């Protein structure tokens, strides 16, 4: 199958950014650090594309760290789902890094820029580690690597609110991670193993014990805090609003997606579908998801800060993913996994466009964006195009995932759920219209300085991201077949 160097690719994927990070610190040069981060991100993108191809044609790849056999040593495992999420993380990272230098230049003090790239690389390594590891405790370690470095990234924001946002995220994030290890500890107590497939094998014997049910509760709340599951999302809006623009674009597109992946892993790869008959988790997730998509979209309408507006919309979008899990059908899970990818390209494009806006007018308040439709035509056109995708206009990726979600709801005869999904899309039209109204139907205030559109090095990444919104919206073969395969492997043959 794989031989020579290529057999070590699963571990290189994580080790590469992990080693690149301290190298950035050694050189202390902003431009060199950027170059290292850029090269590492693109290499990782190459590796994850290669791994995805391998997995689709040859089945799962298992890699033993230090060649210790699986239940004792730590195992890395690449299957379709993890390769798919890896592809999301690495492609967003690669595109954001192309965009980054100009935006970072004006938002982060130049003596700290190299630290920004270091922290980015650590977050990147942590997120990839979560997707690739097949060890429940190792997952916790990577979760904390990515979280700790993302607290630092958020605190680099220019306003002082960034500091409090980072600290609040730190406190809730640590509580979440600690809840997760309590859950893992309880599972270890009952099964004596930490390897995910080994856990899955031993789980049926003990599945109905109270210890395991409590473990499920702890893990659900723990990961729920990380993914911004309503009502555990309180850290998210401020963290996204006050972080440097590039950081918001990267984290919004990847961090919550990887947390959803971790939740899927724990639910379906460890506990299996029978878990849901023992505990009403699916119902709880469904209800929380429905509340999230309606209430958070409504809250988004009243926001004045465009980044905050999109942050609330992100909580709503997580709601869609959770609803998909709550359906417990292949169609529902396909919608969830599709939406991981689709939401990443939507929010990546939107937040990058906002980063470009901030680059020119030093503000992302909706009122300050008045008249930008004329002043920055290419950036705002990208913003609007990505917004269509967020709303779910046909021919965009946003439409595809909502289509599958509604299909899944109708399969189960859940008319109310389908209607609420449509209502929430209409709410998205309202909050999105607010930005369009200011940008296109109001004039720049008198005396405002002349501004030009942003340079090509920013426009190209934005339009690549917007382009993929439409490309994968029209040409859905790749994403849907990968998501379907991943969903089938999670649920197995169950209905």
């Amino acid at each position, binding site marked *: 199958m794989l031989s020579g160097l290529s057999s070590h690719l699963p571990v290189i994927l994580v080790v590469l950014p992990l080693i690149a990070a301290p190298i950035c610190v050694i050189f202390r040069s902003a431009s060199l650090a950027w170059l290292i981060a850029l090269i590492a991100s693109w290499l990782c993108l190459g590796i994850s594309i290669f791994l995805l191809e391998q997995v689709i044609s040859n089945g799962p790849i298992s890699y033993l760290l230090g060649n210790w056999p699986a239940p004792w040593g730590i195992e890395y495992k690449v299957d379709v789902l993890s390769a798919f999420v890896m592809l999301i993380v690495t492609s967003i990272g690669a595109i954001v890094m192309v965009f980054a230098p100009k935006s970072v230049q004006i938002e982060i003090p130049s003596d700290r820029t190299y630290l920004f790239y270091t922290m980015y690389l650590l977050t990147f390594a942590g997120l990839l580690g979560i997707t690739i590891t097949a060890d429940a*405790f190792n997952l*916790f*370690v990577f979760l*904390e690597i990515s979280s*700790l470095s993302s*607290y*630092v990234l958020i*605190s680099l924001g220019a306003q*002082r*609110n960034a*500091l*409090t946002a*980072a*600290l609040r995220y*730190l*406190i809730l994030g*640590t*509580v979440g*991670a*600690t809840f997760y*290890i*309590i859950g893992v*500890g309880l599972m*270890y*107590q009952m099964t004596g193993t930490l390897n995910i497939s080994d856990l899955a094998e031993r789980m049926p014997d003990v599945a109905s014990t109270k210890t395991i049910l409590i473990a499920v509760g702890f893990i659900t709340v723990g990961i729920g805090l990380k993914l911004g599951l309503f009502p555990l999302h309180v850290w998210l809006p401020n963290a996204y609003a006050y972080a440097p623009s590039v950081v918001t674009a990267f984290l919004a597109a990847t961090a919550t997606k990887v947390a959803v992946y971790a939740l899927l892993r724990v639910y379906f790869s460890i506990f299996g579908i029978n878990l849901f008959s023992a505990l009403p988790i699916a119902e709880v997730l469904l209800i929380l998801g429905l509340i999230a998509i309606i209430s958070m979209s409504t809250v988004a309408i009243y926001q004045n800060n465009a980044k905050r507006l999109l942050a609330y919309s992100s909580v709503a979008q997580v709601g869609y993913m959770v609803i998909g899990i709550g359906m417990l059908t292949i169609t529902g899970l396909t919608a969830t996994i599709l939406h991981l990818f689709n939401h990443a390209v939507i929010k990546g494009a939107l937040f990058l466009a906002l980063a470009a806006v901030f680059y020119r007018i030093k503000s992302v308040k909706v009122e300050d964006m008045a008249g930008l439709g004329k002043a920055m035509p290419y950036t705002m056109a990208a913003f609007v195009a990505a917004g269509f995708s967020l709303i779910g206009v046909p021919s965009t990726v946003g439409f595809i995932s909502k289509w599958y979600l509604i299909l899944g709801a109708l399969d189960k005869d859940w008319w109310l759920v389908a209607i609420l999904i449509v209502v929430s899309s209409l709410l998205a039209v309202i909050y999105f219209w607010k930005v369009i109204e200011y940008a296109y139907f109001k004039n720049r205030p008198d005396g405002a300085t002349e501004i030009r559109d942003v340079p090509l090095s920013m426009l190209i990444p934005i339009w690549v991201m917007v382009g993929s919104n439409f490309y994968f919206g029209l040409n859905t073969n790749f994403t849907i077949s990968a998501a379907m395969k991943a969903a089938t492997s999670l649920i197995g043959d169950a209905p």
Partner: protein
Amino acid sequence: MQLPIELPGLLNYWMVIILMMSGFFVVISHGNLIKKIVGLNVFQVSVFVFYITMSKVDGGAAPILDDAIQNYSNPLPHVLILTAIVVGVATTALGLALVVRIRDAYSTIEDDEILEQERDNA
């Protein structure tokens, strides 16, 4: 070494729960950011105690490869907790560093005073 009195079997687990709940309570109820971080620490330590307790085997020795040792405690959770302690130290260090920066920026570390300042500026 023999303890003068025998400890009831579940005592450690009760300690875990008491530590966990008091730590969590401090995190939620206290407005002082330093106290919040202390609470977070107590909360994490309870989990360390939990892991170490569950790996202890009654009368078990240290896990050393020696013919004389037949009954030994499980070393794995100890190792896991070493990792978790490192994570905990990193979290505390970062949290305290943030509190220092917050004090510089707001000249207070009381949560409600910070919120008030943020509301005034909004």
